[in-house]
């Protein structure tokens, strides 16, 4: 009778990943949440409980900025959901069409912006849309529609939507690739069987393929949600930390950055910044939970 040995090898093999993940993800996350419970009074750190959150949600100066950033963030997300994901699905459906020529070329061309840096994308689009040097006004002029052009990035009403669409342009490749992958994994037999039953063309997409790729669409939605609520780079590159004009493009990420690190003469406030980061974490957590428990469990999965 030999006693079973403790499986040390599992511990040893998991240790590096566990340690690295703890050091760079879990510890900073909890430390940020902890930092949100303190404030600095006369150069010493004092525990104040939830007072920072109270300031953030109820102090008129802070809450106005917070709700503005949150509302902008939702608009940013809605545009992605309404524009990026349907276009991604449509592109994937077209690419997976067996008779499409140059499919690989289109696929790469549409995916390439995704691997570009935000700085390049932000700068390139600012130049394209620039009323002074941009090619957008001259292209519209060439087809006689110059009157449609406006300095979109400089107007409060259009700046956020413009930036959202730039972001959609950049990232439309991701839903396209994911959907494409699940579309081509649908077995031929199912499609042939449906053809025998008289379901062809568009109705084959709506009745057969779409239900089969719903789980992928769910994953894409949640990735979009998390990505959008963590967004920061594009706004910062295109509009700066003040997210102009008049904070109309301010999202939670830029609001947090400005508060945490300070800006120009405004000194950084790590404690309020952490409180905003905490609020962002809670929003994302709630969103992901709603998806995981409310939606994903109800999606039907099919085994091929």
């Amino acid at each position, binding site marked *: 009778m030999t006693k079973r040995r403790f499986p040390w090898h599992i511990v040893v093999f998991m240790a590096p990943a566990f340690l690295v993940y703890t050091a760079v993800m879990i510890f900073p996350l909890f430390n940020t949440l902890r930092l949100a419970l303190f404030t600095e009074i006369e150069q010493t750190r004092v525990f104040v409980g939830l007072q920072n959150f109270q300031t953030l949600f109820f102090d008129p100066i802070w809450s106005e900025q917070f709700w503005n950033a949150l509302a902008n963030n939702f608009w940013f997300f809605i545009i992605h959901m309404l524009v990026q994901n349907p276009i991604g699905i449509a592109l994937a459906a077209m690419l997976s069409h067996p008779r499409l020529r140059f499919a690989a070329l289109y696929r790469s061309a549409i995916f390439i912006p995704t691997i570009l840096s935000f700085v390049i994308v932000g700068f390139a689009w600012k130049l394209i849309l620039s009323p002074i040097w941009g090619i957008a006004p001259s292209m519209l002029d060439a087809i006689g529609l110059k009157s449609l052009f406006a300095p979109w990035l*400089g107007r409060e009403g259009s700046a956020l939507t413009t930036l959202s669409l730039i972001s959609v342009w950049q990232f439309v490749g991701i839903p396209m690739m994911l959907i494409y992958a699940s579309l081509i994994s649908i077995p031929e037999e199912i499609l042939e069987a449906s053809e025998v039953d008289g379901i062809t063309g568009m109705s084959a997409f709506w009745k057969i393929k779409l239900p089969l790729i719903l789980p992928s669409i769910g994953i894409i939605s949640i990735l979009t949600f998390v990505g959008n609520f963590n967004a920061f780079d594009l706004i910062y590159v295109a509009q700066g930390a003040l997210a102009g004009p008049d904070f109309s493009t301010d999202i939670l990420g830029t609001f947090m950055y400005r508060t945490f690190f300070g800006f*120009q003469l405004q000194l950084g406030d790590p404690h309020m910044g952490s409180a905003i980061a905490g609020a962002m974490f809670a929003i994302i957590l709630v969103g992901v939970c709603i998806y995981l428990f409310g939606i994903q469990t109800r999606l039907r999965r099919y085994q091929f």
Partner: protein
Amino acid sequence: MIKKTFALALVGTALGATAAYGQDATLTIESWRNDDLSLWQEQIIPAFEAEHPGISVVFAPTAPTEYNAALNSKLEAGSAGDLITCRPFDASLALYDAGHLAGLDDIEAMSNFSDVAKSAWQTDDGSVTFCVPMASVIHGFIYNADAFAELGLEVPTTEDEFFAVLDAIKEDGSYIPMAMGTNDQWEAATMGYNNIGPNYWNGEEGRLALIAGEQSLTDEAWVAPYATLARWGEYLGDGFEAQTYPDSQNIFTLGRAAIYPAGSWEIAGFNSLADFEMGAFKPPVRSAGDTCYISDHTDIGIGMNAATDNPEAARTFLAWVASPEFASIFGNALPGFFPLSDAPVTLEDPLAQEFIGWRAECESTIRSTYQILSRGTPNLENETWGASVAAIRGTATPEELGAQLQEGLESWYEPQQ
């Protein structure tokens, strides 16, 4: 083990350093101006060392974005240089409060500087000055002299003349009257509001009254500049809402715009880019004969590390920085960054000389939001950016903007409550 080696290494460096100080003093300067490295090494330091044998000086700059953080940790660790280049206002004040910068009022040459020049490096009550003012930037308008000649325009001195000139340029149509955008926001506040504003609030008089709580941002003097800015909108180029700072610089230096609301730091860059004659005029006064006020904004100072091993040598150097000789070398090497001492300096660059000449005609002040008033939340400087942009774009009335800024300031600044 590793700790021990590290400690030994530290002791070793310290010993080495002390040995070097034994004979002659070596002063190390901390700075963020790495652009100026060759100026210091080739002109300023040789000039000083020639006069003061026995003191050698090393200029050791860090990248501007890293300077504050790097300097703080060096000061904490006791490894910072003997001389510290000072950022204006709160950043340096915090260093003085923490005991890292020495008070310098006993240096005789400090009397070469005006109170305005010293205001960026003083305690709030003005009792101690802890950095020698080195350079300032002056605001005004740079214009395309060729365009003015072509259209037969005179340099405006009053606000009415200013808008008449803008109207004339607009009517002619071959130039954009004024090159400025509102995309980056700060130009509207810095080159707009704080450029023309001192003529309204009478420079230092209004600025100090605002700090003391005797005036408020809803007063006519503080609101009226927004009304003037609101008139600028129609003279800026098409799509100015999305025009960035580099766009404006390019539009002007390419000769497409006639007037550029400027800070003097543009001079060196514009000289190398523009192939037309340029001139400058100061912010126009409200009516002919009024006293003119200019924003002569303090930007760079230099102070002494309180923990330096060579306080005497450091003081000698600072006294020399306060002298007219330094002012002349520095001002000529960096056109657009003006020495702050009262001693008259002649600059070879005509554009820079034009700017610095205004000091003799006008009263100097600094940007209204920089001292004390931008310590709280909401931050008055950042709010002023947004307000100036809103004024130019016409999205809010001047009165609304004044009320909104005052409300923000009152919420944390006691003298205004």
